[in-house]
């Protein structure tokens, strides 16, 4: 579904991605784990077109994404939930969800998705007219994921959904991710520092280290690998 080939991205003169390649198949959950500064967020921002890569190739369903504006990438169905959630603080919960459906033109489907989300997260329905910035961290993460669901993603990019959340909320967020993948068949690319949780929910994983991909395997094998256990699972 998505094929990334020898991708190189720079911030000014600093090279953040040193030629990474990976592939995602339809319906999979893929995780990318790694330490701070490994290039995980840059990878997602490159795919979304926010930080345009300098060289390499990104192919989504036989179409190249290189040099395409972020809004066109969204219109192809690649939706990102960025790091830190980035809820619009002064838009209401409802308006935040509206922004997720910004490019959609099927009022009927949008209404259905609203119902789906409000039934899945009753707390969001309760706070519908409250400003996004007043929600708690966990609620904001639910809203951020819901906002992405409102776009009916074909490929969902999640950047550290566990960041700054209590363990019990993290557990819940990961359950939702797994459930959404099973129910809708949406392909998910999950970037995480919480390797333990990420490897449990995903099918395959990549380990990133300073702008390169150090390991690639199924999650089962990665969890057994000594290196991953020592460096990322703390065992």
């Amino acid at each position: 579904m998505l094929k990334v080939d020898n991708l190189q991205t720079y911030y000014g003169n600093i090279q953040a991605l040193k030629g990474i390649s990976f592939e995602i198949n339809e319906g999979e959950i893929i995780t990318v784990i790694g330490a701070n500064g490994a290039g995980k967020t840059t990878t997602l921002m490159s795919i979304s077109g926010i930080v345009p890569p300098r060289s390499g190739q990104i192919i989504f369903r036989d179409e190249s994404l290189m040099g395409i504006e972020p809004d066109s990438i969204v219109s192809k169905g690649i939706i990102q939930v960025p790091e830190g959630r980035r809820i619009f603080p002064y838009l209401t919960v409802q308006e935040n969800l509206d922004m997720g459906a910004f490019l959609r033109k099927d009022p009927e489907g949008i209404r259905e998705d609203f119902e789906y989300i409000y039934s899945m997260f009753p707390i969001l329905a309760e706070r519908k007219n409250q400003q996004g910035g007043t929600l708690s961290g966990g609620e904001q993460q639910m809203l951020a994921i819901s906002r992405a669901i409102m776009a009916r993603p074909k490929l969902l990019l999640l950047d550290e959904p566990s960041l700054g959340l209590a363990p019990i909320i993290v557990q819940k967020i990961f359950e939702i991710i797994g459930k959404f993948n099973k129910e809708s068949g949406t392909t998910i690319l999950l970037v995480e520092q919480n390797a333990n949780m990420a490897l449990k929910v995903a099918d395959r994983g990549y380990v990133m280290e300073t702008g390169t991909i150090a390991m690639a395997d199924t999650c089962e094998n990665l969890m057994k690998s000594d290196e991953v256990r020592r460096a990322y699972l703390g065992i």
Partner: protein
Amino acid sequence: MDLTYFFELLLGGLTRGSIYALLALGYTMVYGIIQLINFAHGEIYMIGAFTALIVIGVLTFTGMNGIAIILIAIVVAMVFSTGYGFTMEKLAYKPLRRAPRLSALISAIGMSMFLQNYVLLAQTPDFLPFPNLLPKIARLEQAESLMNSSQFTILVTTAGVMIILTFLIKFTKIGKAMRATSQDKTMAMLSGININKVISFTFVVGSATAALGGVLISSHTGQINYYIGFIAGIKAFVAAVLGGIGSIPGAVLGSLVLGWTESFGTGYISSDYEDVFAFIFLIAILIFKPSGILGKTSAGDKV
């Protein structure tokens, strides 16, 4: 205390404030979206007035009804100024979007000087008389009336523009996109918003209201030259900062407060110190509330 005089000053200040508000809106909306003080905004207002004067000059020969002429002049002025505003953003600001803010600010000052001198050369350095074709309302034309017809027209038009703008920003799709863009540009892009279109739209709306203001005020004051945009622009900018730059209700409130300060200051103390009152008030407000009357202290909802 003479109550009639007080009400005259009150209404005079209200009109003055509405004038500033039409211009201040453009400053505040652009600032809300791209954090730029568009110093060339006053020039758009001036170009609107000049365009209208030319249109009025041509149409007068056709013997049309005065109100029809002013309406056509307003529409043409708005379309023209919109073109200038749109082009200005593309030429002078868009290439600098990733540059430090100061660069864009200097570009704005340059644009302002360029447009002033362009009109100076293309038109004239002298003051030109501007005919007042705004509708005359018989009841307001009597000697004892507290305000005249053009003041009334300016007030009503400004109120109408505010209502339309508020509706646009609160309830329409592009309005929501504007608010989202002002709060978080990256997230707006990730939601599929084309922020270039949103920015262009903001300049278009700001330029259109500035041109409308230019025509109304020139009709009221009766004369224009290439420099009117600078003075009006500075005042409107002060009003926008006073109210809290980036906030639309703030721009309106700041404009009214400024209008009243000037009106009462000149009315009760001395007309020589008109600008002094305005700036004393600005400094006082900024000392006690640096973000302006309705301004938010941190980055937030700016439109």
